[in-house]
């Protein structure tokens, strides 16, 4: 087990974590501001990926595809917020879970209707092909770019929330819903904007990850569940918590899958060690989540005191 391999896995973990952050940020904002559990967030990720792949194939340009994917996800988000989600804010969590579960069924089948039953493929843009030399190892340029991209978006999101008028309204909405109404903010409009913003981030993640995985119906749900793990660990409603949680989940999941089978192989028969190690590694982040909830029932960075 070389240093090069460990570094590569670590970078993979960070890259995975940052993509999870893009997913989780929207989810946690929507819960923090509107108090809504949105299972359909994974569908927005899928919509972003599909629109990016289709548009990139049509125009031959990845970047145009990326813009189209983000725009499509944001538009889809705004539409479902106005038509369905808006009616759920005052409902209990059970209704929210069910209605957004129904949205998953509708959106998945909708995508299948429009794009057909087969997976789409999205190529890495030409300028980001190949690898870079990091001294001890060579690493995929595209994955490295994803890390840079993820950090840039995180900084941008932080600036948006800390420095802009919209950010002030979002923070006010998290702490006191009556207050922002009193301030004369149009809450309906604010909610639609926040939801579309979260959708755009999910769509962006889907489009970016689409270039290293196949783009297919059902791709959003595994990521959605991981994003839930992230925000529950980080503390629901907290962007900082989402960042810490996402990096924890990304790195622990990747390193667990890499290290556990090797660790078990030191005292077990190799084929058995692979099985046991892989089984445990796939449960690791859920164990982490259960542990965090048992020790800190409101997550690491509770947003509301």
């Amino acid at each position, binding site marked *: 087990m070389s240093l090069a391999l460990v570094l590569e896995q670590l970078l993979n973990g960070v890259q995975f974590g940052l993509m999870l952050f893009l997913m989780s940020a929207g989810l946690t904002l929507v819960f923090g501001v509107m108090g809504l559990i949105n299972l359909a967030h994974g569908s927005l990720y899928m919509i972003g990926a599909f629109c990016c792949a289709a548009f990139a194939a049509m125009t031959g340009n990845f970047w145009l595809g990326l813009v189209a994917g983000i725009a499509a996800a944001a538009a889809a988000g705004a539409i479902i917020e106005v038509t369905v989600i808006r009616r759920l804010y005052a409902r209990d969590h059970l*209704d929210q879970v069910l209605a957004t579960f129904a949205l998953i069924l509708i959106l998945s089948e909708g995508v299948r209707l429009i794009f057909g039953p087969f997976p789409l493929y999205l190529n890495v843009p030409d300028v980001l092909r190949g690898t870079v030399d990091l001294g001890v190892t060579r690493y995929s340029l595209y994955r490295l770019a994803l890390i840079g991209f993820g950090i840039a978006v995180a900084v941008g999101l932080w600036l948006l929330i800390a420095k802009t008028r919209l950010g002030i309204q979002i923070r006010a909405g998290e702490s006191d819903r009556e207050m922002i109404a009193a301030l004369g903010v149009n809450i309906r409009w604010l909610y639609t904007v926040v939801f579309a913003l979260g959708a755009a981030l999910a769509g962006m993640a889907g489009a970016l990850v689409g270039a290293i995985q196949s783009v297919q119906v059902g791709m959003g749900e595994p990521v959605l569940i991981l994003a839930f793990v992230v925000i529950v660990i980080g503390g629901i409603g907290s962007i900082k918590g989402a960042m810490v949680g996402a990096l924890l989940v990304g790195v622990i999941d990747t390193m667990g899958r890499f290290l556990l089978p090797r660790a078990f192989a030191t005292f077990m028969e190799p084929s058995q060690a692979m099985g046991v190690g892989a089984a445990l590694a796939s449960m690791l982040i859920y164990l982490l989540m259960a542990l965090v909830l048992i020790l800190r029932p409101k997550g690491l960075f509770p947003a509301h005191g």
Partner: protein
Amino acid sequence: MVEARREFILNAVIVLALFAVPLWALMAGEPFIISLATRVAILALAAVGLNIALGLGGMVSFGHALYFGIGGYCAGILAHHAFSGTPVAFGLSGTNQMLVIWAVAMALSGLVAAVVGALSLRTSGIFFIMITLAFAQMGFFFTLSWPAYGGEDGLPIFVRNQFPGVNTMRPWELFLLAFGVLLVALVVFAMLRASRFGAALMAIRQNPDRAAAVGISPFGVKLTAFVISGMLTGLAGAMMADLSRFTSPAMMAWTMSGELIVIIILGGVGRLCAPVLGAAILVGFETLFGGWTEHWQLWLGLVLLGVVLFARGGVIGLIAGREGHG
């Protein structure tokens, strides 16, 4: 009172219909429909289990697929060892007797539910939903990557397990078995709901502070309900594995947990026969629309959305009106 009588009649109609349709299929020589009815009965049984936690206790478990899967794997693993003549562990042999399998399935899923419940009930709201989901995902990924029992390929049951006096290979007899167990479960649910325990549980759902203030500890009552709930869903899992003669990680997938909730909501939360009606609607939808259009899930989604947004009492609520607690 009018509502109560209407619900009683509706319940009778639902249960009789579940019996009459496969009976007709038996006369008409349509074994496929008998199998569908058996599937409805078993899914309904799983949902009766969840209805105790969710409907009576207000515990939104998004991880009941875990118990369903545990039951399924109990049947699969015991049958597998009985078939191959190898011991399961510690010299204990497998079995192909359903009664033994059911007992093991209920005991094991009850035990797991006790652990999961004891940990999860420390949280509430969305955290409870998510932690129950997390435990089910653990089970899902464990079975997926554990190679001894088939991993992601699942585990076949080559010869259907046996029940004294029943030829389980005949669809009609297997249906009667499932239907009988479902009836018992419905009676258990009704008795539980009417009992002191049910009174305490439903009170805790509505106002845990008040229940505590009169001296009823919410934790103990909820945990007990959660365990009973997990046991019934586990039993259903064992039966489902025998019906499909196959058990796989898919039984523990989060969509399975979602489907069980959907079944209850379609029928009407907390209602006695909601699981039966909901399971019939779900299976019916899958069969009718599935044959007609491959996009049947789109329509299921629209119906579900409509029920959640506009008919919160489910179908039973629409027909029988609100529930009373005189």
